[in-house]
């Protein structure tokens, strides 16, 4: 995509992140898309590739409160949401907010904890509120969760159920940096970690107004139809057991709006859809076991579907 027309505020944020994250512009962009679209991100990758750094840089750049939850098998839901503690002095229960009460949350290794704890987080993500001891606490906006999970094949994991995966707007991989980038990483590591010096380039109020603007980005009927056709094709694909849900279609549209906005457009292009389809759909598609044995991945399925669905080049005739 053409970077020249990028939205200036967003370009600022991305530039800021790039100061600490080397060669991960695409991941930064996608994270920002999710943040702007009001969604959450699931990062699946091995430890040590900079997931935490990424989120912290993002949080710092937009001046958001950053919280981190390290999920372990013995973590309890209250460790996430917060807990009411009896205060003997004042003779009453006092609510002590948990780490979920922040703006940007890194939920590290989410699949290492029990489903019960997982769902506590996921409820918060879905409802933008948590209920503790019968009291509902609204979460502050923006509320953005970046969850990481180890690749599922690793031992000692509780895979997230499909319904909960559906709540992440995007799923992506960090990936290892290439050789040049990694050398640069080493260079920087010799000095003080630059993350500490990162200054915010945007405040939360600005972020919220951007989020509002994004909702106004025009999605033409031709594009909606294109989205629906892609979603439909994932459902009818021979290797797919469960295709993208209508919630997936909505997610794709919202992500595309944010992405188009990021690139300074007030309308969505098929290019946006194509770029985002894989990130939006892969975690929502469940492959048949045969397909899995054959080594087919959800990414491949989405790629094939996109190659097959004709791009709309004319206005819809009503």
């Amino acid at each position, binding site marked *: 995509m053409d970077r020249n027309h990028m939205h200036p505020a967003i370009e600022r944020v991305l530039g800021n992140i790039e100061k600490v994250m080397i060669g991960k512009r695409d991941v930064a962009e996608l994270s920002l898309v999710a943040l702007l679209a009001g969604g959450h991100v699931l990062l699946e990758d091995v430890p040590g590739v900079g997931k935490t750094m990424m989120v912290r840089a993002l949080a710092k750049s937009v001046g958001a409160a950053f919280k981190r939850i390290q999920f372990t098998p013995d973590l309890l839901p209250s460790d996430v949401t917060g807990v009411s503690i009896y205060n003997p002095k004042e003779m009453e229960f006092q609510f002590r907010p948990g780490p979920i009460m922040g703006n940007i949350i890194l939920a590290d290794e989410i699949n290492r904890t029990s489903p019960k704890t997982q769902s506590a987080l996921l409820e918060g993500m879905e409802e933008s509120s948590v209920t503790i001891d019968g009291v509902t606490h609204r979460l502050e906006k923006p509320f953005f969760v970046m969850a990481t999970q180890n690749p599922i094949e690793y031992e000692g994991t509780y895979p997230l159920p499909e319904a909960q995966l559906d709540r992440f707007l995007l799923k992506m991989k960090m990936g290892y940096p290439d050789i040049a980038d990694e050398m640069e990483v080493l260079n920087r590591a010799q000095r003080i970690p630059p993350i500490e010096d990162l200054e915010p380039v945007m405040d939360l109020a600005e972020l919220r107004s951007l989020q509002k603007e994004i909702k106004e980005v*025009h999605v*033409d009927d*031709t*594009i909606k139809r294109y989205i629906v056709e892609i979603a439909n094709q994932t459902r009818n694909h021979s290797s797919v057991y469960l295709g993208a849900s209508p919630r997936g279609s909505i997610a794709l549209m919202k992500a595309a709006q944010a992405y188009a906005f990021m690139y300074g457009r*007030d*309308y*969505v*292009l*098929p*290019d946006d859809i*194509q770029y985002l389809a894989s990130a939006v759909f892969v975690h929502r598609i469940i492959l048949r076991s045969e397909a899995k044995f054959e080594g087919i991945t959800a990414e491949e399925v989405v790629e094939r579907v*996109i*190659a*097959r*669905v*004709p*791009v*709309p*080049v*004319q*206005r819809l005739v009503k």
Partner: protein
Amino acid sequence: MSSPKVQIDFVSFLLYVLGFFLLWEWLRPVEELTDTSNIIVFLVFLILSLLLAFFGVSLLLSSFIKVLYILYALHYLYFEGSFFDFSWIPVFAADMAHNFGLIVERDWPGITNLFRSLLFFILLWLMTYLIQYWLINRRRIFIFFFMTLIYITVLDTFTPYEADAAIVRTAITGFAVMGILTFNRLMDQEGLKKEASLSRKWMIPLAALIALSTGLGFAAPKAEPIWPDPVPFIKSYGQNSGGDGQGIQKIGYGEDDSRLGGPFIGDNAVVFRAEVESRHYWKVETKDTYTGKGWVTSQAEGEYLPFGNEDEIPVSSFIENDAIETTEETSSVYTFMNYPHVVYPLGLKSINASPFITYEVETATEKIRSLDGGRPFALDEYKLGFDVPEYSVTAMKEAGAKAESLPDDYMARYTQLPEELPERVRELALEITQDKTDWFEKARELERYFRRAEYTYSQTDVAVPEDNEDYVDQFLFDTKQGYCDNFSSSMVVLARSIGLPARWVKGYTEGEFKQSIGSGLRLFEITNNNAHSWVEIYFPEMGWVPFEPTQGFNNNVQFNFDTAGQNASQPEAEEPKETEAPVKPDEPTETVAEKPSFSIKELWGNIENFFKENWKVIGAVILAAGVLVFVLFLKRGKWLPHYFIWRFKKTKNDEHFSKAYLILLKELDRYGLKRKNGQTLREYAKYIDSFFSTKEMGRLTARYEEFVYRGVLKEGSWNDTKELWENLIKKTIA
């Protein structure tokens, strides 16, 4: 189709009136060229339908009124008695059922007039609906206007219909309608309310322009065409008719014999069938004046002598006397073509058809026309009573001596020859007849002369005389091959040149024997191929005696030689020919320009024959056209982009932007730069730009993306990007 809008205002009314005038132009020639009469009934129907449409009468009610009118009109045209006694309804229903049966059997000629009229009404109904749809809903009339002009000009060119006034009328009406409709369309497009001042501003210049152009057209000098009139060529090639002798002629009965010659091809269209007791030729008319190129009549045409059913038929044939033994016979004729003339044998005594029919004979040609209520009317069938003569040769031989008894003007009329006739024709006649003294022997000698081997019968390799050549002379001395016209004309001319009064007879041979149908009757079928011409020579006190000079033909004229005795060898001059008389077509004809007989049936026959005869040519033309189209398709890279550039050059309308872009996509695809199904326009544009090393496609595409995916087209988009588009599409030129 949506139901037509109703607008009751003066302009709409004017539109309907003008629409009516255009439709009327279609009906006028129908009246003149076909045997349709009472056209006023149909006109009233048109007016009624258009009025109903104008006032927006509901479909149900207007249909009811129209059906009622149609029934009333049909009753008026075809039934007696009161409309309301309803006794005619069963007859009408039976007729409908009968006609549906005929349609299923595809027996088109059998369809009754009643049913035809009904179908015509339905056609008019459809037409009024179409007119209304074009005028009020579509606001476009050009196609109809154009079709009307074509219709009129074609009729003017190929039929006797004189369309001079019709063209002017149509042009004025058509331009007026188009002008008004354009105004209406503009008003609609711009969403303007119709105001009297606005429409006046439009209508007055419109009227002035039409008046001015029409006036100019009238006043301006009319230049002669700068190329030769192509019509005769088209006629002779397409219709295989054309009386000026150039090109190929069509066989069949025709009127114009003023220029004979040229090859012709057969035509199997059935003219009539006849039940006869003995075979005989069928006469239609005779001609008496030889021009050197063909035959015309000496007297003014169009003089008719009427006669009724009981009257003696005023046609000259043989004169009844003792020397001619006669046998009474009857023949029945069942016609297949709508000719209003009667075919009749020699010695005609009576014609029996419907008692209401009267007849008249054209004095110049002895052509008998059948009339119904004073108008030419084609009979479906009729019965002829006639005497078959057997001439006594003795009497015939003596007849020539009484030549003085003939009136001078009669002799002059039937011994007429053109002054330019070469002398060698007369010398030849004298040479042929030098041994003979009496008229009969001379005539027989002349007739026999053509049976010589040096003359050959041919339909195809027949010359047309040049301006300075004589038709008969050319045949007798130069070409020596031809068909009946050559033989018969030559014999008439030879006979006249030695003083025998002779005339040229046109008609049909006995036709092709089909079957015996009992009680001594035989059924013959006479097609256009049986059209023929032969000779009659007048013998004083004996009357007209037919002779047959054409090789391979035999007129079955009986001569009684018993009393003549000495000439016993002569009969076989006639008889043997029967064996060598395969049904050879003859008598080419000439324009099918018979005014009263222009009919759908004949037209259809002509079309059918045209296809039958020319299927090779048509096939070749279609094949060639197919190849041409295919080549054009293969080479479309060379011309299609030019066409598109030309098409979009003038326009400034942004609506064309997307059209043009999609065409560009198609052209690029044809050029070989295929866009994959899942490839977005932006990716594709990048690919195109890198291929042609430009940035034009990207810029054009950005504009287009905005249109498609945002639904907004900036004003002037097409103007801004036209150049990009042109540059790109030029690149696709192979």
